[in-house]
Structure formats: structure tokens, C-alpha cells
């Protein structure tokens, strides 16, 4: 979130459990999100930023996807689908990734939610992360803000 936004309570970040799905191709994390923000301005509306990691049979973790999505601006219940991607290396790296796993990662996570330096990346589509969010707003219309 931007500079005008202040976290009053709740966890700004967290890590889910590792799910080993037995039924289908969906991992269910059931991770609770509960945050309370206060703001003085509209700029920098909060974003959700996710990194998906995969743990293989040897206990090694590898990156499966980065993604972000904005917290909906209208109050109420929202189901969001956050698309994710991962950086793509050179063909040698892709070949070694095919056999031994791993793969390139971003050094700074700023690239995930800012657009300025993205053009230097080459990426590949990965899965989607599903969110269920309920948004409550207070006193926005007193300042003429229509959400």
C-alpha cells in the first residue's frame, strides 16, 4: 500500500501452509486475511502481492509464480482471481530447470507491483490464485469519495 495508508491492525504479510492436494489440481490454503487500514488519501490503494512456491519430494522449494492484484475499491464480498507468472531464463537455464528444477527469481519484489521496469523481463504464464475478500469502508462518502 502507498504512503498515505497506515496499517492499524492485522498482519501485513504471511505465509500459508503447504497443501498436498489429493483430489484435483487445486491446492487449498484456506489462509485467513484480516487487515485494517486507515488512510489520508486515495493514492496507493492497497494491493495484494503473492508469491507461490512449490515444495518437491526432496523438500526443495522452487518458485512457481509471482502476482499482484488490487484490493477491490467497492465494499462487499469479492471473489478475485490473481494471475501469476514467473521469470523465464535463457534456453540453457530452461533446459536445466526441466531436469533439476529451480529457476530464476527476482532480486527485488518491487517489480511485481510496479510497471516501470517490467519491460526488461521475459516471463511465462503460471496458475491463478483465488481470493475471497470482504471489504468494509467507513466515512468515504463524507469526503466526497464514491467507491
Amino acid at each position, binding site marked *: 500500500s502507498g504512503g498515505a495508508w497506515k496499517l492499524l491492525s492485522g498482519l501485513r504479510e504471511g505465509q500459508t501452509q503447504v497443501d498436498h492436494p489429493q483430489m484435483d489440481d487445486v491446492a487449498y490454503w484456506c489462509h485467513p486475511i484480516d487487515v485494517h487500514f486507515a488512510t489520508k488519501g486515495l*493514492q496507493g*490503494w492497497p494491493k495484494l502481492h503473492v508469491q507461490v512456491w512449490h515444495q518437491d519430494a526432496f523438500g526443495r522449494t522452487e518458485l512457481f509464480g509471482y502476482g499482484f492484484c488490487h484490493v477491490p*475499491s467497492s465494499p462487499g464480498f469479492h471473489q478475485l482471481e490473481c494471475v501469476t507468472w514467473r521469470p523465464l531464463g535463457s534456453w540453457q537455464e530452461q533446459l536445466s530447470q526441466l531436469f533439476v528444477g529451480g529457476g530464476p527469481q527476482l532480486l527485488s519484489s518491487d517489480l511485481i507491483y510496479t510497471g516501470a521496469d517490467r519491460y526488461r523481463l521475459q516471463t511465462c*504464464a503460471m496458475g491463478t490464485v483465488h481470493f475471497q475478500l470482504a471489504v468494509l469502508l467507513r466515512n468515504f462518502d463524507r469526503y466526497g*469519495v464514491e467507491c
Partner: protein
Amino acid sequence: MAAASCSPTVFLLMVSGQIERAQFPEFDDLYCKYCFVYGSDWAPTSGLEEGISQITSKNRNARRDLVWNFPIDVTFKSTNPFGWPQIVISVYGPDLFGNDVVRGYGAVHVPFTPGRHERVLPMFVPESTSRLQKLTSWLTGRYPEFTDPKVVAQGEGREVTRVRSQGFVTLSFNVVTKDMKKLGYDVSSPNLASSSLTSVTDGMHNF
């Protein structure tokens, strides 16, 4: 926000969102550019008005969508809703010889109503009207493109352009407005919000 207590003369439009993904069945390794086109009474106050995304590839294993997940964050102010901002997207990718070729143009108005919106843009490229030009562009690898992508947001000159549509781009918007109601503008008719685009999304599910 402190200035809201006196009577306002301008209203603000905050647009945040992302260029989420695209479907181009024939192409891969694409990047996109976006820019905003707006009327003379409008002025951006913060955020990036244009941007270039990363180059993205399809996933070989699963779905055949391209994912950009590219952020859009911009705030406009205006005194007049005429010339409401439109976002213009242009998609580029390499051809067989590695030259960057345009793969689609598209434009849509930023949603009027506050809240979260999803828009699916059909993407098209201009086509040569004569057989000879088609042949020479096939031989030289130089395909027709618009010198200024902003023309796709305008209504003039459409009668002389011939295009082919070859993909879709999905955008999501979060729109917040400030002082629209105080200035007497009414934008709330939720039943009209996205009905005009349902026919477009129908076509998308066919492939």
C-alpha cells in the same frame, strides 16, 4: 481530502487495475504498451500514463493464456466528463525473423461507475486493402500499423480502415471517483455497467 469541505470545482477519477492476460491463439512471446487518451479538460495528477510490459510466454503445460499481470495506477482530474479517459492497448511480438510486429490494437473507456470491473477487449490490426501491398508486406515482413495507436480511440477515419481481429486482452479496473456527486453528476446505473460487452466475451469462449 481536506479541500473537500469547500465547494469543489473539479472531480477526481482514480483508476487502478491491471492488464491481466490475453488470448492470442496464433502468437506467443508478446508484450504490450498502454496509454490513455482523454479530452482537453482532463489532466493526469499522479501515476504513470503509459507503460510497457514484460515479454510473456504461454505456459506449455496448462492454459493457453498469456499473463502480464501489469499494473495500472493513474489519477485524473477534470471539470467536464466529456472526453472521459480511454485506455489504448497495443500488443507486439516477434515474427518468424525476430522483428517486432504489432499483433493487436484495442481501446476501451475507463468504467464510469466506481468499483471493480473487468473488461475484455477485442484486439485488431490494420490490413492492407490491395493485393499488391499484401504481397509486398509478406515479402518484406513489414506489416501495416498505426503511426499513432491513439487513433483506435477515435471515431474519425474508420470508414477507410480495414482490420482483422485476432485476439482478446482482459483488463481489470478498480475505479474510485471523488466529488462527482457533489458536482451533480450521476453515474449509478448498475444494470448498464457491462451489458454491452457480454457479446464479446461470448466469442472468447469459442476457442
